[in-house]
């Protein structure tokens, strides 16, 4: 740092500490509630797969499950890639809140 830089420098509020606190509060709220029960996501995934397989022929790789944990609500997003049917490649997506 130059000498002039030192004299000119004003404390710039960074604010990333607030982001850290907020992220931790959300994360831990979820982790604390989830600690007792088993991990439900693999169970949901398996059961959904069972339902779909009863009607459609799809591979395990064609199902994509994501979760986004938020402060007020969380979203569970399930994307199922359906097999090719007559040239076009339809893609069904459903999401649940």
């Amino acid at each position, binding site marked *: 740092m130059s000498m002039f830089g*030192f004299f000119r420098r004003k*404390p710039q509020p*960074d604010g*990333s*500490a607030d982001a*850290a*606190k907020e992220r*931790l509060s959300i994360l*831990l709220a979820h982790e604390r509630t989830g*600690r007792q029960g088993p991990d439900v996501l693999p169970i949901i995934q398996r059961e959904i797969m069972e339902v779909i397989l009863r009607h459609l022929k799809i591979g395990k790789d064609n199902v994509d499950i994501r979760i986004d944990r938020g402060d007020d609500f969380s979203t569970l997003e399930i994307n199922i890639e359906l097999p090719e049917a007559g040239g076009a490649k339809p893609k069904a997506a459903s999401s649940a809140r």
Partner: protein
Amino acid sequence: MAKITVVTSGKGGVGKTTSAAAIGAGLAMRGKKTVVIDFDVGLRNLDVIMGCERRVVFDFINVIQGEARLKQALIADRRLDNLSILAASQTRDKDALTTEGVEKVLDELSQEFDHIVCDSPAGIERGAHLAMYFADEAIVVTNPEVSSVRDSDRVIGLLSSKTRRAEKGEEPVKAHLLLTRYDEARVTRGEMMKIEDVEEILSIPLLGIIPESPAVLKASNVGTPVIFDEKTPAAKAYSDAVGRLLGEQLEMRVQPGERRGLFQRILGRTA
């Protein structure tokens, strides 16, 4: 009966061994007969931090497996009469630690010492589990940083569910928060979480605030627990924490980090 205190954190590198050495020495300085045990089998480090690495003959695992008597394995500190160290094995693996073996050693130590300080390894596997299992109190070492706070939260959960006190339905393990590597200047700039933020998130009582300090590395370099370097802010902060651990009512003060002088700052040099 000795009081068993585990120094734990979940995350590695936050200052568990530094804190276990400083607090063990601090208890001995206040006249308590104290032993510090390294539970990090395979990666022992308490011996180098306490400066007795060249005097380790037998270790904790030797005692558990009946290859040495406890008296032979205990290393007496050369600076303080009432301080001893029990080193971890460097060659065995963590499976050598058994619940029964650990219990037997702790029971025997309890006859002779006032305080047993268990230096936990990082993680939540066997070594860490057994380090906390028999504890009466816990010091949860935490840096004001997201991954450390998250892991501390997990460990606090384990203290209230996976310890002997929890399993027997006794009074729960008393957990204390020890905030380490705290940098007031960065907190002022909004770059680091405030003490109250971490306290609020983890909601366990604060035992002390150890400022980020060059004295910690210096102490490790020479194998002297940092609390011996009495003039340094880190030593003062550890000394206060030990006092609070023994029930003293001490005002919570943030020791100033070693400040760089104006001249050094203009030259842009670090201390």
